[in-house]
């Protein structure tokens, strides 16, 4: 039985380091739409400090308030005092659950255990594409499968066109998101995935979801992975493509790919090959504004999550005038697609989805010409 607030107390020095300079206000996606200091990193640091110092008892309201963070790390990047607020918030979320304050993600944890995906979808989707002699495994994850399946289809299609020898497996959720929201990943699910991976005989694992990538790379449950691990943008960065567009294209750095894992160049390498008319948004790379989906926020506050995506999308459109917005994350893609207003002319795709479409168009043109 752990000590109350055991995990938060490890961050006592860090929350004390917060000088309340407020620099996090300039970069927080939730503060941006609420203007409420409590939804911002600095506001949470003083709240957590009061909890650690015993000045305030936890409560349902406080637990709910702690869920309002996408863990995007924009604050961390911008903090001159060396504080990593998402790290602290994750710890306190766990402490609250340990104190008995089950939050709405307990239902998600149960759903994952029961159905193997975060949505509790009973009907398991089978992508097929099982190949005995594949060099690579392609893992797509829950958000792609159950919320953006068309995009995943195009990505699979692209890999086929490029002649990549890959196989898919009987996937279950990486369950990593539970660690962000106060719970734990499911070890038996990790073992299932690892067993399935090893059964294929392939030596490398490619994933389309940056979050799954982070879990496979960093979570102790996947330390027996023993496979070369790549996000799909890393895998395709060195490939050549026979397609191009002269439309104005821009790119949104997913937080899980960019700030969390430092993968900024590879997506851009790919885009520059197929879209010479490429323009960066003002807030880009490690300063990219979050789409609002991460850290469980799309689950706990879906309406605000979509509003954040809408705000980010509006700004990108105003700043770049781009016709196409590319990203490579199923959660960002889903949030942006939900957020886009009909009167906005911008098209939104995952990079691999977009290239797949370009190949299809080229095929059609060639067939018509023939």
């Amino acid at each position, binding site marked *: 039985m752990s000590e109350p607030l055991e995990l938060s107390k490890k961050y006592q020095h860090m929350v*004390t*380091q*917060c*000088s*309340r*300079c*407020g*620099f996090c*206000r*300039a970069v927080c996606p939730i503060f941006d739409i609420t*203007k*409420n*200091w*409590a939804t*911002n990193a*600095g*506001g*949470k640091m*003083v*709240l957590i400090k*009061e909890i650690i110092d015993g000045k*305030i008892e936890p*409560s349902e*309201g*406080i637990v*709910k*308030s702690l869920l309002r963070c996408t863990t995007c790390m924009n604050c961390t990047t911008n*903090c*001159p*005092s*060396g504080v990593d607020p998402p790290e602290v918030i994750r710890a306190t979320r766990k402490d609250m659950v340990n104190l008995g304050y089950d939050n709405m993600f307990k239902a998600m944890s149960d759903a994952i255990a029961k159905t193997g995906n975060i949505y509790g979808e009973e009907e398991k989707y089978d992508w097929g594409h099982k190949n005995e002699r594949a060099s690579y495994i392609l893992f797509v994850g829950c958000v792609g499968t159950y919320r953006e399946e068309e995009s995943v289809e195009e990505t699979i299609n692209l890999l086929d066109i490029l002649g990549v020898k890959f196989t898919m497996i009987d996937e279950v959720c990486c369950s990593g998101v539970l660690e962000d929201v106060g719970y734990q990943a499911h070890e038996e699910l990790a073992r299932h995935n690892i067993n399935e991976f090893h059964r294929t005989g392939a030596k490398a694992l490619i994933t389309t979801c940056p979050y799954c990538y982070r879990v496979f790379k960093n979570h102790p449950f996947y330390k027996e992975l023993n496979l070369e691990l790549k996000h799909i943008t890393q895998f395709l960065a060195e490939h050549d493509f026979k397609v191009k567009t002269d439309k104005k294209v821009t790119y949104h750095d997913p937080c899980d790919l960019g700030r969390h894992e430092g993968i900024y160049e590879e997506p851009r390498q790919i885009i520059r090959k197929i879209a010479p008319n490429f323009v960066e948004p003002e807030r880009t790379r490690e300063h990219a504004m979050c789409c609002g989906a991460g850290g469980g926020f799309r689950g706990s506050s879906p309406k605000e999550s979509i509003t954040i995506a809408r705000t980010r999308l509006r700004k990108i459109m105003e700043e770049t005038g781009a016709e196409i917005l590319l990203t490579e994350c199923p959660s960002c893609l889903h949030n942006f697609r939900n957020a886009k207003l009909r009167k906005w002319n911008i098209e939104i795709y995952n990079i691999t989805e977009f290239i797949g479409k370009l190949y299809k168009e080229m095929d059609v043109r060639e067939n018509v010409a023939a």
Partner: protein
Amino acid sequence: MNTMHEFIDIVGEDNFSDKIEDRIPYSYDASINVYRPDALIWPETAEQISQIVTIANQKGVPIIPRGAGTSLSGGVIAIEGGIVIDVSKMDKIIEIKIEDRYATVQPGVICDNLNKELSRYNFIFPPDPASSSVATIGGNVATNAGGIKGAKYGTTRDYVLGLEVVIPTGEIMHTGAHTMKCVSGYDLPKLFTGSEGTLGVITEVTLKINPIPLHAMTAMATFGCLEDAGHAISETMTKSNLIPSVMEILDKVTLTSIRENTSLEFPECEAMLLTETDGYTWQEVEAQMMVILEIFKKNNPLAIKTAKEEKERMELWEARKTAYATLSRISSGVLDDVTVPISKITDLLTGIQEISQRHGLVIGTYGHAGDGNLHPQILYDSYNPEQVKKMEMVESDLFHLAISLKGTLTGEHGIGLSKADYMGLEHDKVEIEVMKKIKKALDPNNIMNPGKMALHF
């Protein structure tokens, strides 16, 4: 009807909160004062604020106006409870009139955002506090914020042309003009500027704006002793026949912290000066800089470096703007802003060192040397009661030192709560009585940010 319900009726449920998880963050600002407000309101118009303040005045409910909450003196702390009015949602730039050289903004507009918009016309609102990326114009006006360009371009007060204010009895007042000069009636904009939210809630600000100088050049000089740096500063500010646009100092403690926590590289030294000249032609800018560097050279510098490229200049400024927060990586701190006449800057620098040694607490000092405004940051362990006591003694000694040098308790952060006890040290009884009379005349029920500046009645 319950007062809280009256407020909810005015702004709507979504713009009101009395939840503990919201009240706790709003108990804090960047100072060490902590008091819990009873509720928070996010109004969107001056009319809403007027209605709220009218009710508050009738019922004796304290009102605390708040912008970004980056006050370093407890200016936005609800020491007597009450309602915090957070103006962050009032963030529209209402009008930019280049042909009349002014901009009108709502109080929640962020300083840098205003300047980003103004830069499109090659104009600027010069006061640039280190917090400009998050601080609001309303807060800037309430504290007469200074900043790095203060040496040449002054402070917020020099730019406030007009204000719209909800006064403590609830009426909306318009004061000031859209002209560059105005002496019509009492100069109320100047009174409200720097009044730290004790005389009303600012709901609109009209600011004078300047064209951005076409060229600027930055220089950095390091010195082996504080006296040399001090002399370099006062000679530049008074014997050079020019005024640099910037004259900043960073001491050894501050520089060590920056060196250890950022990728910036600075040589070992006792003090570093950052200076800048600006103007219409490169010739002028460089000529002015040469004069300053000659003065520096006469004061035993260890090294001098100049930067003309934007990127290089910005790197030097980044160090200065994050000094406060970088030092806080070492430990908790209290940041003061004692200010003295220019000729006394060396005495202040060495005096601070002596106080630090005497009490055994580390003090990192940096700041606007060019206008005599230093920021000693007193580092201490806030969990150690002995260190807390020492910190209080150090503060007291710092204030006494500044006053003894004919200085002031605060150049730009305001009195708030942090320095309220020391008002008598600087102000004579007659002056304090006049201040109290003004306060009482405008705020007979003492509801507007009560308990600040020691203006009890």
